[in-house]
Every structure is written in structure tokens, then in C-alpha cells.
């Protein structure tokens, strides 16, 4: 019984972490689907969203949750458009690798800027639920984790609908698949790309807001970007369902390998699996998505 509770607890923790990684993976895929590049600053976007929400809007200005969330989303959407202008647009005709390099630079810049703006102390905010949780039969679940799971499911549904059913979503996919052809259809490709960055940044912001009460906000928060990246590879690049499944896989692998193999090398194990996928199954677990060339 005690053992069963422990295993259940492991599963809960794995799913909770995994849904966070899945959320980050969605942000990656959004940009990937639209412009065929991997925004390697995605984790830093999450961090920035967390800082704006936690450090500035909540702690400094004392705003309640919803207005703070909304303002963070708006700020990050604008930030997404601006960073698209700086990092992507000038290099739009260059090799995708160049754009990815410039996103790395952007990430480093954001880490340094956040150090100056918010200091070295991790920003700790309680969010809606603080450290409160459910306790059933020896298994404890933070309300915040349930909240994250619900948010991820809702976002997933919205995104699926958006890409499959709306003209805007379809034209964004068209731009991603063949920008010239899309332009010949009369689609303003660069506007679509700007919208994509805005939305992807907003997703990252939501990630930061949801994570802040669980992990606190510090420069280290940007590391969730790596796990999100692993989730994308495992789920298959550009595959939206795959991203979430990939996220859950990474979360579960992390918790179970830490429990039964090595807690110290749990990240190494995740990345070993990531490399395994890159070599043997680059199309991801579902095998539908196209391969990304780095």
C-alpha cells in the first residue's frame, strides 16, 4: 500500500512536470510550424514571462493574478513581435541555422538583462494556490499542478482548433511549408510570422506564469527550454499532440530514472534518450512530423 502510494506519487509528479515541458514544447512548435526554425531562446522567453509576472507585476506593483497574467501576455506578445523584427526578419532569407544562432544570442542577452533588471534573488510568488494541495491516500498533488494540467489541455485544444479550422491558422501553416507559394496566394507572410512570434511568446509567458509558483523565477528557469526541446524531438517537430506526449514522456522518464537509476544523472538520461531519438527516430514518437535540420 505504501509502495503503491509512492508509485502513484511518482506518476503524478512525472505528469505534472511533463505537462510543463509539453507547454514549453508547444511554444517551440508554434514557431517551428510557421517559419521552420527552432527558437533556442524559448526557455528564456519562459523566464522573462515569469519575471515580468512575478518580479514586476505581482511583487512590485501588487497586481492580482488575472490582471498580472493578462498584462504579462500582452507584454510578451509585443516582445515577441519586437524580437521577431530584430532576430528573424533581417535574416529571413539566410539559412535557418543563422536564425537559430541569433536566437541563442537573444537568449544570452535576456539572461543578462534579467540579472540586471531583477537581480540574483529568485523571485517567489504564490500564484492562485500557493503551496496548497490535495492529499488522497498518501498521494499529494499541488493544486498548481492540476491548474497547469488543465491550462495545457485547454491551450492544446485551442491551438488544434486554430491551426486546423481558422484561415489565419491555415495560412500560418502554409507560410511555414512554402513561404513563396504562400505569398503568391496573397498571404502577407511576414505579418503571419510576426503573429506567430507574438503568440509563441505569449505561450512562453503563460508557461512562466504557471511555473513561477512551483519553481520560483530565476535564470535557471530558462533550463525548462532544454526539456521542452527534448519533448519536441521525442514527440516529433511540429507535431502538436506529439509535443505534449513528448513532454509527458520526458517528465515521467525524469522522475522514474531519478528514482530507480540515478537522481544525479536524471537530466543526462533524458538527453541520452534525446540523442537516441535524433539518431534512430528523428521523426519522433508518432512518426508523422518532418525532420528538422540543425
Amino acid at each position: 500500500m505504501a509502495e503503491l502510494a509512492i508509485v502513484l506519487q511518482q506518476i503524478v509528479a512525472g505528469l505534472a512536470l511533463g505537462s510543463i515541458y509539453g507547454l514549453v514544447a508547444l511554444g517551440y512548435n508554434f514557431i517551428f510550424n510557421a517559419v521552420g526554425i527552432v527558437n533556442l531562446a524559448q526557455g528564456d522567453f519562459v523566464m522573462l514571462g515569469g519575471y515580468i509576472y512575478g518580479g514586476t507585476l505581482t511583487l512590485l506593483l501588487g497586481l492580482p493574478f488575472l490582471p498580472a497574467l493578462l498584462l504579462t501576455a500582452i507584454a510578451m506578445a509585443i516582445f515577441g513581435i519586437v524580437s521577431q523584427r530584430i532576430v528573424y526578419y533581417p535574416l529571413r532569407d539566410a539559412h535557418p541555422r543563422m536564425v537559430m544562432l541569433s536566437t541563442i544570442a537573444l537568449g544570452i542577452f535576456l539572461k543578462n538583462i534579467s540579472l540586471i533588471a531583477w537581480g540574483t534573488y529568485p523571485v517567489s510568488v504564490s500564484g492562485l494556490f500557493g503551496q496548497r494541495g490535495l492529499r488522497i491516500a498518501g498521494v499529494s498533488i499541488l493544486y498548481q499542478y492540476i491548474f497547469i494540467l488543465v491550462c495545457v489541455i485547454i491551450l492544446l485544444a485551442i491551438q488544434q482548433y486554430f491551426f486546423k479550422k481558422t484561415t489565419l491558422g491555415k495560412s500560418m501553416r502554409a507560410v511555414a511549408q512554402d513561404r513563396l507559394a504562400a505569398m503568391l496566394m496573397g498571404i502577407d507572410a511576414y505579418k503571419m510570422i510576426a503573429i506567430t512570434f507574438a503568440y509563441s511568446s505569449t505561450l512562453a509567458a503563460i508557461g512562466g506564469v504557471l511555473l513561477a509558483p512551483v519553481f520560483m523565477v530565476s535564470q535557471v528557469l530558462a533550463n525548462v527550454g532544454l526539456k521542452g526541446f527534448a519533448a519536441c524531438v521525442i514527440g516529433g517537430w511540429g507535431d502538436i499532440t506529439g509535443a505534449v506526449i513528448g513532454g509527458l514522456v520526458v517528465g515521467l522518464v525524469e522522475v522514474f530514472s531519478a528514482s530507480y537509476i540515478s537522481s544525479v544523472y536524471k537530466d543526462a538520461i533524458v538527453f541520452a534518450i534525446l540523442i537516441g531519438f535524433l539518431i534512430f527516430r528523428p521523426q519522433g514518437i508518432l512518426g508523422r512530423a518532418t525532420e528538422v535540420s540543425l
Partner: protein
Amino acid sequence: MLRLEKVNAFYGHIQALHEVSLEVAEGEIVCLIGANGAGKTTTLMSIMGVVSTPQGKILFEGEDITGRPTPSIVHKGISCVPEGRRIFPQLTVMENLDMGFYPRRDRPAEFEEDLERVFRLFPVLEERKDQLGGTLSGGQQQMLALARGLMARPKLLLLDEPSLGLAPLLVEQVMESIVEINKQGTTVLLVEQNALMALEISHRGYVLETGTITISGESGKLMADAQVRSSYLGT
């Protein structure tokens, strides 16, 4: 309807078009023939505003459209079926057609009507409407590309080598549909390496050689032209 006046086009510093002038009147099929690398695609891309044309003038329905952004040119009523088809491989046939309808997305009521029209022209597309574009055969993809171009209900349709890579029987079929499209009221500027086919279905033609128009005239006359015959018709 469309007039190019002494258009120069550049890729970086490389000049690909030298003072190209040509004209397409309403209701016509005009063909542009020439060898590999002559500048045919460049001419079409200049019209679409994709390639920069710092000198010369491009007029559409009397209006100067030189240097306009591509989307606004499409909205004016010019569609282009690009070389190599370039259908969206990960979108279904329906979604591809939906993208073709993009310039008219504010008139959703007309979508069904247009869809029926292209399905009548290319019944195979209706059978495959939920299939991903990338899974169609070459001929089907060319039909989808044509259909997608038509979904915009363009006044002028630019076609870049629609016969490329198709079996002779399919080429015949595609050419017939171009004539049909034209009969239904769409003006066509057809770029082809398959000069014989192009001249057979067109009213007038231009010959492009290394970025310069060398010969032009009624298609029948061009077919009789000794130089055209030896260079492009292999006789």
C-alpha cells in the same frame, strides 16, 4: 490588361532581365517561350513583385503596380501557378484550395461555388480532397496547383511551365484545361519550354533569350518562323 515597359530585373548585382516589354490583352492566352535560364520565371516573378525591378514599369489594367508588395498584387487580380507547382505538402487538398481562396476570404459565401467549378474541371481533386497535398501524384499536384490558382478568381493567371515533368498524355490534359479556363474568361500568360504545345494553344507569343525579348507575334506566325522552328521546335 498587362503591360511591361522596358523592365530590368536583378538578383543582387546580376541582371536577369534586360528591358523586357510585353503585353497581354484581356481574354488572351499569351505564351512566353525560351531556353533554360532565359529569364521566363524571372519575368513572372517580376510581375508578382517577388523579384526587384528597379527600372521599367509594370502596368496592370492601366495601374502602375511596379514595386508593390506581392499580396497587394494578388488582391488586384493576378494569380501565379509557380514553377514546380509548390503546393503545400502538409495541407490537405481542401486546405490547399482554401489557401487559393485567401484573397477572397471576406466573401466566404462564394467558396462553395468556386469549389464546384474547380472540381468540375478536375474531378480527381474532389475524390482526394482530404488527402495531404504531398501524397498526390505529379499530375494530380499540377491540377491542384492550377485549381488553387483559380480559387482566387484571377483576372490574369500566370502559369510557369505547367507541363514540366508530366507524361505526354497528362500534358495534353493540362493544356486542354488551360484552354477551358481561358474560355471561361480568365486571361492567361503561359510560360513554357514545351514551345510547340504552348504555341498551339496560345493566341500570341514572345521569345525570350538571355533576358531579352527577341521575337514576338501571333502564335501561328511564330510557328512558321524559321528561327523559332530551328531553335525551339526542333525542325
